[in-house]
């Protein structure tokens, strides 16, 4: 029982980070109908940025976080302006291929700048530990949980009470209405990419603090896709719920099934199995809008 609870609690913390990363994806999708395959690579860049600011630069954690966020904002602006703006109105495949190409370029940049090597920065995040009964939550997971919850709460406030947040929600609802009200859609797109980059980078620092920065961090994006599909691609609430579900399921499945399989590594394939099952039985996810198509 303790083993099970331990798996569930670790999964919860992990799932919250997945949810944070998935939210970046959902925001872009809602605002500009772009499926951003490069979300996982924002995490990769984030992990390495965290390493750069914390270890070679030796900055304190909050300054490092601030610097990483500033870098993410610049990155988001550049990506939107240089790659996505020229492709406005192009077919789905073109835009998706552009984001795949973007992912490739970001992977290449990470290889060029950091050598694609394993760069650990354990113990540099603040440490808190929590123990409930026999279940203990490692410090890094707890930090991840707390930061993710704060980020999600901030995003919720942004969408509810600020002008740009309202504009973004309105754009997701109806582009034409928004444009006729004098809101610049391009500004909304730019802000959505900035937010996606920032949450990706924060997620990267959180994950990097646990496992170290390495080129495989980008694969977390694939887990984020499974989260997004499970939650419904256009639902932020769905992303949070699905993130937690997937994080827990993954940990429990890996904990119990890995010893049974000779090769192990079920955790790697797990998100894909979830994806296929969701796509076959409930393509619009748990909370997604069912799209009605007309000719």
């Amino acid at each position, binding site marked *: 029982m303790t083993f099970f609870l331990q798996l569930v609690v670790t999964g919860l913390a992990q799932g919250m980070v997945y949810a944070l990363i998935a939210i970046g994806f959902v925001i872009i999708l809602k605002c500009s109908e772009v*499926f951003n395959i490069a979300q996982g690579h924002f995490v990769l860049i984030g992990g390495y940025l965290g390493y750069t600011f914390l270890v070679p630069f030796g900055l304190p954690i909050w300054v490092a976080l601030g610097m990483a966020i500033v870098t993410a904002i610049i990155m988001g602006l550049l990506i939107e302006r240089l*790659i996505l703006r*020229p*492709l406005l109105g*192009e077919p*789905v*495949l*073109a835009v*998706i*291929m*552009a984001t*795949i*190409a*973007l*992912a*490739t*370029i970001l*992977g*290449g*940049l990470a*290889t*060029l700048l950091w*050598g*694609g090597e394993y760069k650990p920065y354990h113990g540099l995040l603040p440490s808190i530990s929590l123990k409930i009964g026999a279940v203990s939550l490692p410090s890094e997971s707890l930090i991840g949980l707390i930061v993710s919850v704060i980020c999600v709460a901030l995003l919720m406030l942004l969408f509810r009470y600020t002008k740009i947040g309202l504009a973004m929600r309105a754009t997701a609802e109806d582009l034409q209405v928004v444009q006729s009200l004098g809101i610049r859609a391009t500004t909304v797109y730019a802000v959505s990419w900035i937010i996606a980059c920032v949450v990706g980078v924060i997620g990267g620092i959180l994950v990097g603090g646990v496992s170290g920065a390495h080129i495989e961090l980008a694969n977390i994006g*694939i887990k984020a*896709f499974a989260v997004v*599909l499970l939650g419904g*691609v256009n639902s932020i609430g769905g992303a949070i719920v699905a993130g937690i579900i997937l994080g827990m399921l993954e940990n429990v499945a890996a904990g119990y099934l890995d010893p049974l*399989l*000779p*090769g192990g*590594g079920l955790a*790697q*394939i797990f998100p*894909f*199995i979830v*994806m*296929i099952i969701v*796509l*076959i039985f409930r*393509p619009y996810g748990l909370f997604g809008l069912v799209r009605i*198509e*007309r*000719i």
Partner: protein
Amino acid sequence: MGLHSGTFHENYAQDMAIFPTKLHWGFLLAFLILLFTCPLFFSDRILTIMTMMGIAVISVHGLNILTGFCDQISIGHAGFMAVGGYTSAVLCAKLGLPFWAALPCGALAAGIAGLFFGLPSLKIKGFYLIMATIAAHFIIIWTIIQLRGITGGTDGLAVPSPAIGGLSLSSKTNYFYLVMIIACFATLLAKNIVRTRAGRAFIAIRDNDLAAEVMGISLWSYKLQAFFIGCVYAGVAGALLIHYFSFASTDQFPFFDSVWYLGMLIVGGMGSTTGAIFGAVALRLLDEVVTMAGPVLSAAVAPQAAASLALISHGLIIIIFLIFEPRGLYHRWEIIKAYFRLWPYSHEVAE
């Protein structure tokens, strides 16, 4: 004989001809002669590059039928190639089947895998289908690694060198001929598949699947047919790839290749058989340039520069084509052809 400055087809046969004039036939013949005399002029290294191009052409033809004509976007093509390649390799290595029998079996197995992973396409499209095919790629590779007893898992599997009857295909020249013959046949088949009833149904589904269904095209049947045909091509390409190295390994089918075949399709021009050839050849050439430039750059800048140059140049080329020439090299080729055909006049009579 002669260049035509307009379309003057007088009967149905002329209208349907792939090569309408004698000049076209002349160019085709010259091209084929040049292609099949290549081993006389070129070194083994260049023949290897050309063999790889031929394999890529076969694979991209399959993807073109699936994605370019039927709009069922697949980013799992390398996975389906792995199914074909491994089936053929296992049949050869474990059951001792001859090469010529194992190759079609591999193609069929890839087609069946395609049918299975194409099933979600009946309910979903666009991004969802992309996710399903990405999942397909990783599930296939994972399964191959798990079936260690049959496939050798991560250690790979040694395959006997290919031979047809008494003719050994292990030399670069012989294998080059084999791949080129299959590639030419595959091109002819691809060109003709899209001119059949099924091909027209694919195009109708691409242009508007709901309208196509209303007009009586069975989406169920034709989408799965597109997946089957596309994956059979992938299977042939995968089997040729594995037999070329006489060794099967999952490293030969990285996920990036799945993306890269789609990149070839975009660079070449979607929905055009000629474009698929252009794309495969152009991007394989780019690969070679990157491979040659890599060590130079590594020495000059940093050791990791070679790997990052490959990734960055691949990403950039796709983005540049998407932004500046979304219709691909094929469109440029048409413009160039039209220029020479119409010279010195700048307008066509009718087309």
